[in-house]
C-alpha cells in the first residue's frame, strides 16, 4: 500500500521524465480549456454576483448553432460570426426578459432564474438543431507534432496546442478588457449594489448585455473546442460542472484565478490519473478535481484570488 502510493509513482516519474512532461503538458492544455469554461462563469459572477447555472447550456447552444449552420452549407467563418451574433441576441433577450424585471432582487432569485434559462436553452437548442451527436472537425489534425517527436521523443498533440493558443488569446484579451478600466469597476459596482450603481449613472442594462454577450461568445469558443474533442452533444452542457472546482480553486471573481485554477486542476487530475490511478482503482480523473476543491474550501473559501468576504457585525 505504502509502496503503491509513495514510492512507485515517483520511481515511474524518475524512470521516464519525458513521459511525465507529456502528461503534464496534456494536463495543462486540458486545464486551459477548463479555464475557458470557467471564464464564462467568472464574467457573469463579477457583473451580477450570481452563479450562472446556464453557462453550460450556453456552451451547448452556441456549439449547436455553429454546427447546425455549418451543416446547412454556410461557410464556417460566416457560421462562426452568425453564431456569435446569435449569442449576442440571446444576451439581449435574457437581459430584457429575465434580468431587467429582477433588478435589486436577491442573488438567489437570479440564480433560480438562470436555472430556468438552462432548461429553456437546452430544450430550445435541441428542438431547432436536433439532439443527435454531431462530429465537428475544424481542420486541426488530432495528431502529435512528428518533427518534435522525432527530435526529442516528446509527443505533443497539435489540436491541444491550437486550443491552448486560442484560449490564451481569449483570456488575455478579456483580462485586459475587464481589469483596471472603468468597465471593470462598473462591473464590480453592479455586482455589489444595483441601486447604488444606478445612482452613479452606471447603465445597468448595457453592462448586463455586454457581459452576457461576452459570456456567450466565450461559451461559443469553449463549445467549438470541446465539441471537436467530444462531438457536439448534450454532454457539452455538463462540461460546465468541470469548471466548478476550477472556480472554487481560483475564486469566483478573478479572471487570472480562473486560468490558474484551470491549469492546476487540468494538470493535477492528469498526473493523478496516470501515476496514482492504479493504486486507487482507476478512473480517479472523474472525481479528483472535486476532492481538491473540497479540501480547498476548508482552507481558503474565497479561492486563491477571490475577494475576501467582509461583513461588519
Amino acid at each position, binding site marked *: 500500500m505504502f509502496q503503491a502510493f509513495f514510492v512507485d509513482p515517483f520511481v515511474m516519474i524518475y524512470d521516464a521524465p519525458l513521459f511525465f512532461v507529456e502528461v503534464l503538458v496534456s494536463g495543462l492544455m486540458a486545464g486551459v480549456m477548463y479555464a475557458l469554461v470557467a471564464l464564462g462563469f467568472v464574467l457573469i459572477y463579477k457583473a451580477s454576483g450570481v452563479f450562472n447555472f446556464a453557462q453550460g447550456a450556453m456552451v451547448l447552444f452556441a456549439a449547436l448553432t455553429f454546427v447546425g449552420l455549418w451543416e446547412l452549407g454556410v461557410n464556417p467563418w460566416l457560421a462562426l460570426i452568425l453564431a456569435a451574433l446569435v449569442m449576442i441576441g440571446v444576451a439581449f433577450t435574457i437581459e430584457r426578459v429575465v434580468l431587467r424585471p429582477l433588478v435589486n432582487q436577491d442573488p438567489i432569485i437570479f440564480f433560480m432564474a438562470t436555472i430556468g434559462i438552462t432548461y429553456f436553452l437546452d430544450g430550445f437548442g435541441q428542438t431547432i438543431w436536433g439532439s443527435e451527436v454531431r462530429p465537428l472537425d475544424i481542420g486541426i489534425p488530432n495528431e502529435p507534432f512528428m518533427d518534435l517527436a522525432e527530435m526529442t521523443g516528446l509527443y505533443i498533440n497539435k489540436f491541444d496546442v491550437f486550443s491552448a493558443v486560442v484560449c490564451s488569446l481569449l483570456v488575455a484579451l478579456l483580462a485586459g478588457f475587464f481589469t*483596471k*478600466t472603468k*468597465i471593470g469597476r462598473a462591473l464590480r459596482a453592479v455586482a455589489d449594489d444595483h441601486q447604488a450603481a444606478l445612482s452613479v449613472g452606471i447603465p445597468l442594462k448595457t453592462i448586463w448585455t455586454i457581459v452576457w454577450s461576452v459570456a456567450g461568445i466565450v461559451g461559443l469558443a469553449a463549445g467549438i473546442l470541446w465539441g471537436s474533442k467530444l462531438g457536439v452533444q448534450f454532454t457539452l452542457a455538463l462540461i460546465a460542472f468541470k469548471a466548478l472546482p476550477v472556480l472554487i480553486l481560483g475564486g469566483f471573481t478573478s479572471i487570472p484565478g480562473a486560468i490558474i485554477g484551470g491549469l492546476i486542476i487540468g494538470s493535477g487530475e492528469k498526473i493523478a490519473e496516470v501515476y496514482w490511478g492504479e493504486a486507487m482503482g482507476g478512473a480517479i480523473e472523474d472525481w479528483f478535481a472535486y476532492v481538491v476543491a473540497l479540501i480547498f474550501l476548508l482552507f481558503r473559501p474565497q479561492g486563491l484570488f477571490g475577494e475576501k*468576504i467582509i461583513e*461588519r457585525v
Partner: protein
Amino acid sequence: MERKIGETLLSVDHISLSFGGVKALTDISFSIREKEVFAIIGPNGAGKTSMLNVINGFYHPQEGEITYKGVHRKQMRSHEAAVQGIARTFQNVALFKGMSTLDNIMTGRIIRMKRNLFWQAMYLGPARKEEMENREFVEDIIDFLEIQAIRRTPVGRLPYGLQKRVELGRALAMEPELLLLDEPMAGMNIEEKQDMCRFILDVNDQYGTTIALIEHDMGVVMDISDRVVVLDYGKKLADGSPDEVRANQDVIDAYLGVPH
C-alpha cells in the same frame, strides 16, 4: 466664492405616486433654487424618500411633471438623472462593500469618463491619461472629506459614520449640480453630525452645489437650510424659510398632534 441663490434649478409640479392602492405622494409641488440648501422634512412614512426617488428616477410618478434645468419631463430616468448632474446618497448607505474607498469614489467618475471601449481595453494612450486625471480629481475629494487614511480600506469594514462620508464622496465625484442627501446624519453621534454639517455647508459654499436633504434632526435642519418643505402622509403641509415653517400651525399639529 460669494454664495448667491439663483433661479429655479428643479421644480416638481403636482406629483402623485402610488403603489397599487397605496398613495405615497399626492399632488406635491415645490421648487429648488440654484445654490440653496433645501430640506425635506416630515414624520416617518411621510413620503420624503419617495420624493427623492422620484427626483432621481428610481420611481416613476403616475401624475405630474418634473422640470430640471428648464426641461419638462413626465418622469426622470436614473441614468439620465446621473448624467444631467443629479447625485444622491441613501438612507441606509448603499456602497459597494467589497471595494476600497478609492474604488467606490472612482465609480462616481464613470459617467465623466468618455474614452470608448477600445482604448480602455488596451488601457493605454488616452484612456490611461483619463484614468490618471480622474484619479487626481478623486484624491482631491478624499482630501476634502479628510478620509486619506482609509483610502485602501474595503468600505464594508468601516464604521457607519465613515461609510456615510465615503458615500458623500462618491456623490461628489459625479460633480453634481444637485445633490440629494437622504438622512445624511442618521445614526451619528454629535461630533460626526457636526463634521457632516460642515462638509455639507462647505460643498454648498465651495462648489456652489445645490443641496436637497432629508433630515430628522430639527436643530440641524433649521440651522443649515435656506428653505424647508414639510410633508405628511404624502401631502405637502407647508414650505418656506425655516422660521415660517416653524410657525405654521399645520406643521405643529403634524409633529405634536392635535387634541381630539
